[in-house]
């Protein structure tokens, strides 16, 4: 069982800062890659970036 602790355990004080960073990162990525607004402003602004990063577009 020692190997589990060595490979996957995260000290409790380090859990939340890392977790918060991951939640923020995923929010930014998914927002930029996926959000569609009624007037397509966001889609058209992000268009070339989405195509080039292989996000599903259109």
């Amino acid at each position, binding site marked *: 069982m020692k190997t589990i602790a060595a490979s996957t355990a995260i000290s409790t004080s380090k859990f939340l*800062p890392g977790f918060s*960073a991951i939640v923020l*990162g995923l929010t930014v990525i998914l927002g930029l890659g996926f959000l569609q607004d009624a007037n397509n402003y966001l889609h058209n602004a992000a268009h070339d970036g989405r*195509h080039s990063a292989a996000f599903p577009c259109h």
Partner: protein
Amino acid sequence: MPPTTDGTALPFLAINMADFRKLVAVSLLAGLLGGLLLSLLQHYQTLPLILAAEQFETPSTEEHVHDWQPMDGWQRNGFTLLFNGLTGFGFALLISASMYWRDQRGYLYGLGWGLAGFLVFFVAPSLGLPPELPGTDSAELHSRQAWWLFTTAATAMGLFGLFLTKQRWLQIGGASLLALPHLIGAPHPEIAHALAPEALQQHFVVLTSINNAIFWLTLGAISGQLLRKVTF
């Protein structure tokens, strides 16, 4: 450094804001540098192909012809730079948080995490849904987005199980998760049709793959190196 909310009854919920701020600062700088590099690569390599493909889109096939679009030139490139910088920030947050959790520093570890990000966010989704030029027919958007999300999540968990656990059953489970999205298969239209010539599309896939590989490895290396500059 002690958590800033010392004295809480639940130490698990006492977030160390100083560490979080350092992760954000490292990721912001790495993301902006990586995004700038990717924008330069795209400007000279893939943007000409996107513009060429748009020549095949007549006003009747262009879906959003009446909507606002950034003007070609500085405005369009500016939004792409902003998009790349912000996605770079988001991706760098995932890299730096992973390294923070595992007490890793330096560009060599960063390159490893960059490679993992490239596999998760580019290679795995592209195997089923290759990067497309404008004017390419594809299946309904939401089904493709759902498959993209499922594939990135399964690939991330799969790589973790395969490489970062020691138990045989988790490694086998990880390998299965890597394969699962591709066994299910990506949604595709019943009749595929593209306006741009096939050669242009293939050229686009090759160039985006190279550009995204360079972007991810650079992003990982910069993030890892910047993590050396901060103490947690």
